[in-house]
Structure formats: structure tokens, C-alpha cells
């Protein structure tokens, strides 16, 4: 495992360049924010393939849907807060209901966008996208998995939402690893004491938490649930059978995200305690990414604490 730090959002421009370099005819719809999303990097090399429709998220989605109606392979990216927030109804009506394979990229999500504050810190995108039938919802943990998922989405037959973050996060996977797909997950550490289901920046926190738990003789199984919808259900259930208890961890509201998806799976198929590490019923605020992670409890120590509580209630 490496300790190199990279931001998942930087994978976007790279994915567009690599796809185009490999012969795919991609169109990227930009909302005058290409320097933040990485679309500008793509536009500078392939100006004809990047369409800047201005700072108008509703229209970004509609234009992308119109392009997809004509069979174009379309990516559309902006700040998650605005693309998913303002564009939600267009995503629902013009992308999800007709089932168009538009790749929606929510960049700079979560509290770790930092100083910009609550308006920019998207914490409900997974919830909004997860409720839409047919929408694949992906929340990669590092640059390599983000790159693979962004590139893989090009061949998707249905709509895809990919959540990216701005703050650099530790590399989890080996460079070039491409074993990621909607509905998939990755067991990063095997264990039989507690299942840690996590996504995004919380994957590296869960791996740190697993080391601490190990010192307490609780072996944690860490699953990178980068596919929030569809969930890697069988992988998670198999783990539940081994451990009998679970903690979920995500940089998202506790409502509607990975935690509730995992809890619903447990309730339906194998009832066990599921404790959540997430942002509970409050918006973000300004601060450094590290401060905010600490303040909102999105840390390894919170996972350890939740794991201890879950373990006490474990199903035997």
C-alpha cells in the first residue's frame, strides 16, 4: 500500500483524456467550472469535445440528455452541490426516467471541500441519486479507483453518478488496478470480528481503525463499498455471516446514504447491529478539510468507537 495523496476529482480530466486517447468519442459537458472539475484539461487538448454551456446546471443536464438521446457518450461534471442539487429534477425527468446513459460527475463533494462552507459541501448527493431507479451510484475511495470507475462508466447502458472529492486522499489501490464495476466492492482487509462498510475518504479511515481494533483483538473486515447502488450485497452479507456486526462510514448525511442502504440490507436479509459514522442532521461549515473531518466525526477513532459498540451487540 502506498501513502501517496491524490484528489479523486483529478481523475476526471485524466479519464476523459485516456478514453479519448483510446479512441472513444466522448463529449464532456461543462458548466463554466472546468478548471475545478478537470474538464478544462480535457478541453485544452480536445476543444471540440468539450461543451461549455455556462453556469446553468439544469441546462447542463438537459443538454447532456439531448446529446445522449442522439447516441453520444456524454459526461457532465460540476460541483456536486449544484449539479445534483439544482439539476436534480432534470436528472430525474430527462435522464433517469428515460434511462439515458449520461455520466453525471459530482465533483468536490463532502465537508472536505473545506473553506467554501455549507453551501458547497454536498452531503446528500448519494441519497438523492440512490433513490432513482436504474441509477448506478459510485463513491470511489482514491484516485485509482475513481479513474477506473470513470473510464468504465463510458460503456454503461444506463445512467451513472460518480462522486468525487477535492481534498487529496491517500492512495488505496495499486496504480493501474481496474477491477471496479457498478455493483462491486473490494474486501481490503479480511476479518471475523466486525464488518466495516465504507466509501470515499472513509475507506482509509476504516483501514486505520482496523489496525487499532486489531490491537484490541477485534479483527475488522474492511469493505470498500464504492458501489453505493447497486450495493455489493452478497459480499456484504457473506461478511455479516462471518462477523455478526457492522459499522458503516461515509462523508455524507446519515440519512439516505451508504449507512441506510447497508442497514436496510441487514434488516431484509440478516439482521445484525449496524452503527453509522456519518454527518448527523446538520450542515457543514467553513474550516480546513482536516478540521472539518475531526469536527464532524469522520475519523478512524469514531469508527473504532462505533465498532466497539456494534461488536458488543453482535449477533452470535
Amino acid at each position: 500500500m502506498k501513502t501517496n495523496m491524490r484528489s479523486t476529482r483529478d481523475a476526471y480530466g485524466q479519464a476523459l483524456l485516456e478514453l479519448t486517447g483510446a479512441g472513444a468519442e466522448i463529449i464532456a459537458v461543462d458548466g463554466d467550472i472546468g478548471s475545478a472539475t478537470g474538464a478544462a484539461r480535457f478541453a485544452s487538448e480536445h476543444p471540440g469535445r468539450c461543451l461549455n454551456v455556462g453556469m446553468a446546471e439544469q441546462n447542463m443536464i438537459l443538454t447532456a440528455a439531448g446529446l445522449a438521446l442522439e447516441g453520444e457518450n456524454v459526461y457532465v461534471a460540476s460541483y456536486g452541490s449544484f449539479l445534483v442539487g439544482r439539476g436534480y429534477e432534470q436528472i430525474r425527468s430527462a435522464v433517469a426516467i428515460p434511462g439515458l446513459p449520461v455520466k453525471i460527475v459530482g465533483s468536490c463533494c463532502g465537508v472536505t471541500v473545506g473553506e467554501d462552507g455549507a453551501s458547497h459541501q454536498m452531503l446528500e448527493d448519494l441519497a438523492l441519486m440512490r433513490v432513482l431507479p436504474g441509477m448506478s451510484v459510485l463513491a470511489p475511495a482514491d484516485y485509482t479507483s475513481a479513474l477506473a470507475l470513470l473510464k468504465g462508466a463510458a460503456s454503461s447502458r444506463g445512467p451513472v453518478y460518480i462522486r468525487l472529492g477535492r481534498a487529496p486522499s491517500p492512495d488505496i489501490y495499486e496504480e493501474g488496478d481496474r477491477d471496479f464495476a457498478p455493483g462491486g466492492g473490494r474486501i481490503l482487509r479480511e476479518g471475523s470480528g466486525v464488518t466495516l462498510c465504507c466509501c470515499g475518504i472513509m475507506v482509509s479511515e476504516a483501514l486505520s481503525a482496523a489496525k487499532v481494533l486489531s490491537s484490541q483483538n477485534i479483527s475488522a473486515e474492511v469493505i470498500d463499498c464504492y458501489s453505493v447502488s447497486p450495493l455489493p450485497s452478497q459480499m456484504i452479507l457473506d461478511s455479516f455471516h462471518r462477523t455478526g456486526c457492522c459499522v458503516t462510514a461515509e462523508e455524507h448525511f446519515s440519512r439516505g446514504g451508504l449507512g441506510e442502504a447497508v442497514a436496510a440490507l441487514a434488516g431484509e436479509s440478516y439482521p445484525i447491529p449496524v452503527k453509522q459514522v456519518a454527518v448527523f442532521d446538520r450542515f457543514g461549515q467553513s474550516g480546513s478539510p482536516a478540521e472539518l473531518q475531526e469536527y464532524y466525526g469522520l475519523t478512524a477513532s469514531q469508527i473504532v468507537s462505533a465498532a466497539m459498540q456494534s461488536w458488543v451487540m453482535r449477533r452470535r
Partner: protein
Amino acid sequence: MTSNLSVTVESAAEVRRDVVRMIGMARSGRVASALSIVDILVWLYGEVLSVRPDEPAWQDRDRFVLSKGHGCPALYAVLAGCGFFPRDELWSYGRLGAMLQGHPELRRTPGVDAPAGSLGMGLGLANGMALALKGRRSTSRICCLAGDGELQEGAFWEAALVSSRHDLGNLLLVIDRNGLRGEGAAGEIVPLDSLKQKMLSFGWSVEECDGHDFESLREGLSRLEALSGRPRCLLAKTRLGKGISFLEDDPSGGRMVLDRGTVDKALLELEKEGDLL
């Protein structure tokens, strides 16, 4: 190649009768709003749009985007009249499992090129389609039919800026200027004065015409076609509930539910219109 639909008052009256029958049977649908666009649709499908009813997904067809999705009974009746699907489908409009949904849906209905239902989104979709076609140097055109009521939606104006920015000369926007919104008359809710000037200032070529007069529609389009480069907008003055006197004067703004009695009354008026020919 256009469809076999004849652009006559008679065939428009037949479409109107089908609209009234459909909505009467379904007991649901905005009849007055559908009737205001019948003549525009008959004209478009009869002599403007190049389509193949027996090959709905024909790649070189002209595309049609109905932005005011609630006007779909008129679109369905016209599509059936063109032969996109059997006319019998009209009678299950809005029913469970029907080909013809309460608002247009992609893939369910042959001839429907874009989803609709949420107002104000048609032009944005049409832009995307027009950009794709322009990018591949297709000669196909896109026609989007929007209602004036839905111009309250911000997304329409976002899209209107983009159409001109990209010089979408392959795009024709027809605005059904029936002067009515969801809950009342134009101007009472949000003023939409100087619509022509608004569109001109957004970089469009604009012409006005009578949306119930085929000759006026033809002239309007030919004046627009003489201008090149810019996206084209035809402001078609129409009357809500056109063709049925008690709907034209309906103060409820076209929300009247058609019961058996009003359906018969409406059909009788439309028969008279046919008889006069």
C-alpha cells in the same frame, strides 16, 4: 419525405375529434391545451418534418421535441394519423400498461423522440440533440414545440442562450402562444410581454404567425428560412381549446374535465366544422 398526413382543415378536425375522444375516455388530460397545438402539429408532420412512420428511429429523420408534454394527446393523435402506430392505441391513453402515457415517454411510443412532462425542459434537450447532429454534420433538423406558459421556467432561458451561442441553425422552436398558463391568463401571473423582442435579444431569428392558419405558418417558416445561421423561433398565436366554442371561452383555463355530455357536445361542434368543408 414527410408522412401521408394531409395538411387540411379536415384532417385537423379529425385530429381534434380524436383528442376529445381520447381525453373523454381517459377522463384525464388537458384538452384545451392539446387543441391549441393541433394545427401546428398537423402542419409540422404533414409537410415540414421528414419522418418515416414505418421506421420511427430512421437516423436521418427530423426530430420532434414536445416541450409542453401535457399537449401529448394532440401529438399522439397526429402520430397515429401518420401511421406510427394503430389508431386503436389512442383509446387506451393513460391506462395501466398503455403505449400512450399521460406524458410522452421515450421507447414506449413510436415517434416520440424525447421525454417530456416536466415543463421547460424541451429546448435544453433539443439543444443537445441539435449539437450532436451538427457535430456529425447531419442534415436532420430538430423542431421543439413549447408552450408560452412554460416560459416561466428558468431552464428554458438557460437553453435559449445556448442555442444562439452555438448558432444552431438546425433548430426550429415553435412557441404555442395561447396566452394561458396553468392557473390563469397571460400577464396576470408573470408578464411575458415583448416575447419577440426577448427572443431577438437572446440571439434568435423570430417570426410571428397565426398558429391555426396553415398558410400563415408556411409563410412564417419561409421568412425564417431566408435567414441563416441563427436558431429560428416561430411565435404561433393560438387559441386555447381551438375548435370547440365552450372550451375557447372556458374561464378555468382548460382544466375542464370532459364528461360524456361535454364530449358529445364537443364532437358535435367538430362534426359541424367538418361538414362546412
